[in-house]
């Protein structure tokens, strides 16, 4: 795919203040150097294997398959990675890169807290100072992850501007980066933001799809018919999809957060309800009004509660290579409970959006067809919030 000047078709780019430009160029140069550096790759592979626990399992969800009575369902168990989600794949790579670049401090935004926890973990491991920016609303619905980050030695800043969620956390992390750029690397958590981030994060996440392909060929002797992933910014989705982009028979399905429904303003379904714009350093799809003001979005999932989407996904949508479908809060909560009860696996509420989609399409497919769901994270962090959603009075 053409990534000249960071473009995926017409999407992507580097729409940031001048102050950051030299730093982005420096990052791009360093990234291309280390992407081809055998020692760097060897060290990263060591960490992924011995610290993060890769490769993650590809698990045949037999009970779910039988219950739905259609396609065979496999779960890619990114939830079993150290720190509980796919975020660690990107973070280990980026923090290593930051260290090689001579940076002594990393900063990051976080929504659900998974990326913040992963960044705090990698920073501690590699001896870098770490500060996390998290919307105030998210610090409340994901209180346990705040304490977890602090336990790991990170400073957590509660962001009170705007809608106090992921978008505002990104704003504040960018403001912090502009203020202190020479010793600090911004560990962006998704395939979004200015070039080269969408490229770097995708490259560190594509291991998910590479492993899926090898594992499914071993298990089934053929490629899957569909790969399903939840999508906010889109890092776990692109990670799962990338290896299959040229396998045109494989359906790639991204599940975005429809919140209370795409017919209400309370959703974060960027592809379904958004339009093309330029924000957070990239040209892509955004939820916005007729004057280009970014819309306040809603999702039960803090990790998908973002008004934009990564530029490569915008391109994959335009060329009809991937499908993006909205999944509501109610469907996600139902899938959260369903997977817990059928397979004994509590998924992250983000990943539950992908499970919800699989529940719908599996029964429309033949029994010899195969679906892989990217189970991007585990749901321990969501248990209290789901209880509250169900009306159970519970303290974390």
């Amino acid at each position: 795919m053409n990534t000249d000047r960071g473009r995926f078709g017409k999407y992507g780019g580097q729409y940031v203040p001048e102050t950051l430009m030299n730093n982005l160029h420096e990052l791009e140069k360093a990234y291309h150097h280390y992407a081809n550096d055998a020692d760097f790759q060897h060290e990263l592979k060591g960490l992924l294997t011995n610290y993060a626990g890769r490769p993650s399992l590809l698990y045949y969800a037999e009970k779910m398959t039988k219950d739905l009575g259609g396609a065979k369902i496999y779960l890619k168990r990114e939830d079993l990675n150290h720190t509980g989600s796919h975020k660690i794949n990107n973070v280990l790579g980026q923090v290593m890169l930051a260290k090689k670049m001579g940076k002594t401090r990393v900063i990051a935004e976080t929504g659900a807290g998974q990326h913040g926890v992963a960044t705090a973990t990698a920073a501690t491991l590699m001896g870098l100072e770490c500060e996390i920016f998290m919307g105030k609303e998210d610090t409340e619905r994901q209180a346990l992850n705040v304490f977890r980050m602090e336990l790991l030695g990170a400073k957590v800043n509660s962001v009170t501007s705007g809608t106090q969620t992921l978008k505002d956390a990104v704003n504040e992390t960018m403001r912090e980066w502009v203020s202190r750029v020479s010793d600090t690397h911004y560990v962006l958590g998704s395939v979004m933001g200015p070039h080269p981030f969408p490229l770097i994060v995708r490259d560190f996440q594509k291991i998910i799809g590479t492993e899926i392909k090898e594992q499914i060929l071993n298990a089934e002797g053929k490629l899957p018919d569909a790969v399903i992933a939840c999508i906010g910014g889109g890092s776990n989705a692109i990670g799962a999809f990338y290896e299959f982009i040229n396998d045109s028979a494989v359906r790639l399905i991204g599940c975005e957060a429809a919140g209370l429904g795409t017919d209400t303003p309370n959703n974060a379904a960027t592809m379904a309800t958004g339009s093309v714009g330029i924000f957070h350093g990239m040209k892509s799809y955004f939820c916005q009004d007729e004057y280009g003001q970014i819309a306040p979005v809603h999702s039960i999932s803090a990790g998908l509660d973002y008004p934009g989407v990564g530029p490569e996904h915008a391109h994959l949508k335009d060329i009809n290579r991937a499908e993006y479908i909205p999944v509501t809060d109610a469907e996600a909560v139902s899938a959260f409970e369903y997977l817990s009860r059928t397979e004994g696996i509590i998924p992250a509420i983000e990943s539950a959006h992908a499970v919800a989609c699989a529940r719908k399409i599996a029964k429309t497919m033949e029994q010899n067809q195969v679906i892989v769901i990217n189970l991007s994270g585990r749901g321990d962090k969501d248990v209290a919030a789901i209880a509250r959603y169900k009306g159970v009075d519970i303290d974390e």
Partner: protein
Amino acid sequence: MNKITKAFENKKVFIAFITGGDPDIETSEKLIIAMAEAGVDIIEIGIPFSDPVAEGLVIQQADERALKNGCTVDKLFAMVKRVREKVEIPLLFMGYINPIFVYGKERFMEKCRECGIAGVIVPDLPYEERDELSDVCAEYGITQISMVAPTSDNRAERIAKEAEGFIYCVSSLGVTGMRGEINTNIGEMIARIKSISPTPCAIGFGISTPEQAKEMAAISDGVIIGSAIVKLIAENGRECVAPVKDFVARIADAIN
């Protein structure tokens, strides 16, 4: 000669910023007239944005107030058209790329020309992405102002060579807002740009007192003040016109 560059002839220039529609459109209109009377040479009208990533808290809150009070680009165009009948000095829009892009670049610049906007400053459109607007700006005769930052280093030359109107020299790292001290080596940066380009250089970010303005004007062609003015607007609401007029008059005095 470019109308904006012409403002720099034979004097140090004072560029004042307000967020359009803060606290409301009527007050913005009065402020522009009062500031022009008080000796401001160029006025930047900020287009309020939901997510002003390059702004400090003072201007973030101004954007919030303006949007809450119903400010839109269309209302700003109408206001500029009215104010143009009373004010001669160049008026610029300072705005993020998304509101311009979504409005329609062509339609936006056409309206700018129609109501008498001389130029635009787009803080999230660096040199590499200039092309997003350069053709359409040229078509409608709207000057696209370039920014140079303390981290620009080798980029400064490329940026300065293509700059029009004036070069917006960012005094320090970080977002907009008042600073006690400006401690980057701004003088050296200006001198280097001046050796490359005849386009005037104005310094912005962090300037809030007549003393700072005088000091910065001495090493450049002009100063840009935003947050200090916006703070007065925040403190005085609709009664802000007199205190702002008094403040900008003192700055105008100090630099020449």
